[in-house]
């Protein structure tokens, strides 16, 4: 059960954040200028082009991913720590 929640938390949080940052970032590039998340302005400061994807949505997705991680952390704090299983440990070389 815990293993499923671990994987679900990692997949959902990572998925939300990567969707906001990378996924919709690709959409933004493919949609043409502006390629970033800020509107294009002319010399007079007037907005001449706005991002296709609202930055509020993209930042919201990233924040949602962080909230999932926060909820996961709260869950881990609320559930008892599993007994140490010495058989699970393994000495691991870095390289």
């Amino acid at each position: 059960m815990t293993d499923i929640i671990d994987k679900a938390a990692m997949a959902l949080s990572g998925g939300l954040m990567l969707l906001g940052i990378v996924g919709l970032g690709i959409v933004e590039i493919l949609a043409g200028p502006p390629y970033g998340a800020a509107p294009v302005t002319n010399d007079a400061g007037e907005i001449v082009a706005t991002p296709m994807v609202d930055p509020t949505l993209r930042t919201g997705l990233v924040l949602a991913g962080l909230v999932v991680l926060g909820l996961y952390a709260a869950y881990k704090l609320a559930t008892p720590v599993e007994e140490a299983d010495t058989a699970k440990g393994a000495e691991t070389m870095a390289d």
Partner: protein
Amino acid sequence: MSYQATNPLADEFELALDGPLTAYWLAFLRVVTGWWFFHAGVTKLIEDGLAFSYGPAYMQQMTGTALGPIPVWMGNNLAWLIAPGVPLFETLIGLALMVGALTRLAAFGGVIFMVLFWVGNAGFGHGLVNGDLMGLLLFATMMVVGAGRYYGLDAIVEKLAFVERHPKLRYILG
């Protein structure tokens, strides 16, 4: 690598390929760092092609920095390399990091870029530790931990017989 039989959380957070949270987070950081550079590079390619003239101009104004005359000399004499190199290498570094191939070599390139940005931008209004330095440290971290081994292609490449025969290749993989 640490091994703590008495700490039941050690396995979960341990910096090993089977440390699930660590592997997940390093892979996530690697992809986001890669996207950062890929986006910077590919949008320059779209807008300016291989003629990113701002690159040499940026370096020519880097006077009085800790890097001495090097950036100015590069801006004056290596414009032929910098103008196409900035968008091209940013794109390639980003791609390599996102897929986790040649991760350490790519991250080293990122460190070079970020050193120039950190020193050149000199955005030290809130201290030396700023976003540019954090970006630099992110690339350095990718190298230190060999982040390409976590859900990246380097995990596969490093198992190839050719790499097994030439283990020093791991210094540019990982």
